[in-house]
């Protein structure tokens, strides 16, 4: 029978979701349910002089009002979970509600609990807070300047951490034939899942159990961290994720709000729900990117890149987010040289406190930023030495014979064939014809640009010993239990936490191929700390590469136990038992057989087990991979810039991605497409705006441009398949690749279009007004 892995299987998840039968957190109602609403600071930095909550408390339907002072000593500060050794991290205290000082627009100041959502929001407006506005700073480079306002007394120059990876000397650069210096900033963007953050906590005073539904990509991390924050033990703490409307990194973080809701439920002994508004999401959900990068690139006239030296000022916000310190230092800092064989690379990262919302992972988390930097710089380099950018890439790529390939900063890439993906992209694009067409149209006064971006990503988190080495406060192995029921159907448990990625479907494909039972007989349980023993969640494109392989390994164990039992029941040697298409049979004697269903029953009944074998058919694996996986690819964008208006139209977009073995091409394409929309969104439209003091100015979808359907042409996609040697299935991460590859492709295309006009660089996003202004300046750097 044809294997299911590799097939375009329709998703199992969908019948529920397309009929309105999905159960998202806000759909859950519990008798006695109360509603929370949080009053947030309107000031970027202010002393809280006094809070008068009497009016709110007296409002009919209001059950409780909490302030930071009320909770002092009752809830601990929310910590970060990534402390890289050698970064000299100064972690400040993030109390769930600000006690004396609010440090960003959106910092929680008080929380109202009421009988209805409307009442809770009314009452929030009745709380009177007297603030003393303090000086503030929003921009990370400004924050490090002499005389900048000090947000914390204990943090000199607002530097939360400094981390240096690799070494490049001045000589390495000075002696270079060609030296490029450039600034490649990736602006702050909002992850913006369509379902905002939320929590629903229920406490049972009789059993002492706390159940928390929360919008989380990693419920076990939530349980672990919140257990510390709330002084509440993990064995009594049940964290569960309902159907979830997207995450994109925005729901990795453990947030104050979740601790507050849990606390209120325990304090009031009634269930409490909180659902963030979109305006709140812009204020107080972790943002992404916001890295200001100054790069020096040294190379030769014939196109070889010899050294990279970067200084990254990473805005980390007013408080450290859960993964905040790791993204700029590890994901960005150690990937500086990308897919290229470059002798030397150095990245110095300053993690800067500012009066803004915290910055954490957003799809790609460091890799899109570093790829943007590198691929923009490679194009600038190509232009400077007057060489085709395709050729420059080809010259510098690590070649497929060199894998496992050690990059300039010591990361070992598992497998790759970068030239293959580049060649395919160039071929699919019809690159040479495009260049000719571009020349032709330029003569007619039309400005077409062709932009490339080749990337490699650190994905599939990962080996736990490495996690320890880089200060990640947890493991990154994955666990799976395959439970076979007496009737032969199967429930599989794993610690990854899907919310749109389709694990139910793709993981079932893996199990189906191994057990040979009907696809419908396989069911998955995720997102539940009571059902799944332990797991590390869904981020870093790790679910399939680690979780999917854990499922595969646990299923293998089931097959092997079944084989032992079958041998016993068939009175044959274990070595002589074949298992295929759901049937155990004695080799060469087709008649002597047991179906998987029969074995399931025999194991569960345990009437006749081999000596020493335990009853049941349930196996568990903890899979800790030996390395990360490194997906790669090349994207090509073709745009036209209207020089009269600065408007940009994407004419074509060609993506060739390699994510190792593809389990379900349709699902994988969906991931690439969604990723590209977010990357191109960053390049052209999206951006969180703060003024220089830190006043948020983009608090809604009216003020923040989300990509829409008519912004894009049809994407031309293809995969190459270079298997990963570090896991059984040969899979790599896929979910972040589209984003990682696309920012630079889109930006390079625009810059390529504008090159004849002397425009060298424009800050992202490339909105028409900025593009128009740059064209007017004609060559001056804007």
């Amino acid at each position: 029978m044809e294997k299911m892995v590799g097939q375009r299987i329709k998703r199992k998840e969908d019948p529920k979701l397309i009929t309105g039968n999905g159960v998202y957190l806000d759909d859950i109602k519990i008798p006695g349910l109360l509603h929370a609403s949080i009053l947030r600071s309107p000031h970027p930095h202010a002393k809280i002089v006094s809070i008068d909550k009497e009016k709110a408390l007296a409002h009919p339907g209001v059950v409780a009002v909490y302030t930071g002072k009320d909770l002092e000593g009752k809830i601990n500060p929310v910590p970060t979970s990534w402390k890289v050794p050698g970064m000299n991290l100064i972690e400040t205290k993030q109390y769930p509600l600000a006690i004396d000082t609010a440090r960003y627009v959106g910092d929680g100041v008080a929380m109202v609990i009421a009988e209805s959502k409307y009442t809770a929001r009314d009452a929030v407006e009745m709380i009177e807070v007297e603030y003393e506005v303090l000086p503030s700073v929003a921009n990370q480079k400004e924050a490090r300047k002499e005389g900048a306002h000090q947000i914390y007394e204990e943090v000199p120059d607002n530097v939360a951490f400094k981390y240096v990876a690799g070494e490049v000397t001045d000589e390495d650069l000075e002696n270079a034939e060609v030296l490029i210096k450039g600034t490649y900033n990736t602006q702050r963007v909002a992850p913006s899942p369509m379902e905002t953050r939320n929590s629903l906590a229920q406490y049972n005073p009789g059993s002492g159990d706390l159940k928390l539904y929360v919008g989380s990509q990693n419920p076990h991390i939530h349980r672990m961290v919140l257990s510390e924050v709330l002084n509440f033990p993990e064995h009594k703490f049940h964290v569960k994720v309902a159907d979830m409307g997207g995450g994109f990194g925005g729901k990795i973080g453990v947030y104050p709000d979740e601790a507050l809701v849990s606390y209120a439920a325990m304090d009031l002994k009634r269930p409490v729900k909180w659902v963030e508004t979109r305006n709140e999401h812009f204020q107080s959900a972790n943002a992404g990117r916001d890295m200001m990068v100054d790069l020096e690139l040294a190379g030769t006239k014939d196109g070889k890149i010899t050294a990279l030296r970067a200084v990254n000022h990473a805005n980390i916000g007013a408080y450290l987010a859960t993964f905040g310190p790791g993204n700029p230092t590890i994901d960005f800092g150690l990937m500086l040289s990308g897919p290229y064989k470059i002798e030397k690379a150095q990245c110095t990262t300053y993690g800067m406190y500012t009066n803004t919302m915290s910055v954490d992972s957003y799809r790609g988390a460091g890799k899109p930023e570093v790829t943007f930097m590198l691929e923009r710089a490679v194009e600038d380099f190509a232009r400077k030495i007057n060489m085709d950018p395709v050729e420059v890439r080809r010259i510098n790529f690590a070649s497929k014979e060199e894998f496992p390939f050690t990059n300039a900063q010591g990361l070992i890439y598992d497998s790759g064939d970068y030239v293959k993906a580049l060649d395919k992209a160039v071929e699919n694009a019809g690159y040479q014809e495009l260049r000719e067409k571009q020349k032709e149209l330029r003569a007619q006064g039309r400005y077409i640009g062709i932009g490339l971006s080749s990337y490699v990503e650190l994905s599939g988190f990962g080996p736990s010993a490495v996690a320890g080495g880089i200060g990640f406060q947890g493991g990154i192995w994955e666990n799976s239990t395959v439970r076979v029921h007496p009737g032969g159907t199967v429930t599989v448990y794993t610690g990854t936490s899907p919310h749109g990625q389709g694990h139910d479907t793709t993981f079932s494909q893996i199990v189906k191929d191994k057990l040979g039972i009907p696809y419908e007989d396989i069911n998955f349980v995720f997102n539940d700390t009571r059902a799944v023993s332990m797991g590390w969640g869904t981020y870093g494109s790790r679910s399939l590469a680690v979780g999917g392989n854990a499922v595969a390994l646990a299923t293998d164990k089931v097959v092997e136990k079944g084989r032992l039992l079958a041998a016993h029941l068939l009175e044959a040697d274990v070595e002589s038992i074949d298992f295929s298409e759901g049937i155990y049979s004695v080799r060469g004697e087709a008649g002597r057989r047991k179906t998987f269903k029969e074995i399931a029953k025999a194991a569960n009944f345990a009437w006749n087990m081999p000596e020493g074998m335990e009853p049941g058919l349930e196996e568990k694996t903890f899979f800790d991979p030996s390395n990360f996986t490194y997906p790669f690819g090349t994207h090509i964008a073709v745009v036209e810039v209207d020089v009269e208006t600065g408007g940009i139209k994407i004419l074509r977009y060609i993506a060739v991605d390699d994510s190792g073995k593809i389990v379900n091409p349709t699902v994988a394409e969906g991931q690439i497409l969604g990723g590209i929309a977010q990357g191109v969104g960053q390049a052209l439209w999206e951006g969180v705006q703060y003024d220089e003091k830190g006043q948020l100015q983009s608090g809604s979808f009216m003020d923040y441009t989300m990509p829409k359907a008519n912004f894009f042409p049809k994407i031309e996609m293809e995969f190459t398949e270079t298997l990963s040697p570090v896991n059984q299935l040969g899979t790599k991460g896929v979910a972040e690749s589209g984003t990682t590859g696309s920012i630079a492709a889109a930006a390079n295309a625009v810059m390529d279009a504008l090159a004849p006009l002397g425009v060298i660089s424009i800050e992202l996003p490339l909105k028409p007004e900025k593009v128009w202004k740059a064209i007017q300046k004609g060559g001056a750097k804007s």
Partner: protein
Amino acid sequence: MNNELVNVTITLNGEKRSADVEPRMLLVHFIRDVLNVTGSHIGCDTSQCGNCTILVNGRSTKSCTLLAVRADGSDVITVEGIGTTEKLHPIQQAFWDEHGLQCGYCTPGAMMASIDFLTQNPDPTDEEIREGLDGIICRCTGYEFIVNAVRSAAKMMNEDNAVKGEV
């Protein structure tokens, strides 16, 4: 604030439903929180995302832009009213076939908007579909497979109509 409750009666997915609510209550909250029909979702506060799109008297409407009292007496259809897992509406079938959803949160709104769009324009080009989806924000899919789904639904619906002898 005038807290006197007012009666709102709507026909929801073919069934008459009635409740007394605050006059300021939004239709989306009335349907989700009072009538407990939760398939339509809320994705923003400012009527941009269209995740709450439903049909009011046959026209696609962002149910967060309408007060429940304004919908009094209306015929309202939500995702729960267009098909079941046993008998899917063509738009549901198409979203499933074409992988038009990932997290599924915007999907009910996207499907309801598409139904109205296809009623107005039964044989759209891809460009028209992309324009027609302007009122919907989806963060997962990059829209391409939604466009494919709407195109495929148009085909199915036209074939259905041909069978029924309608134009």
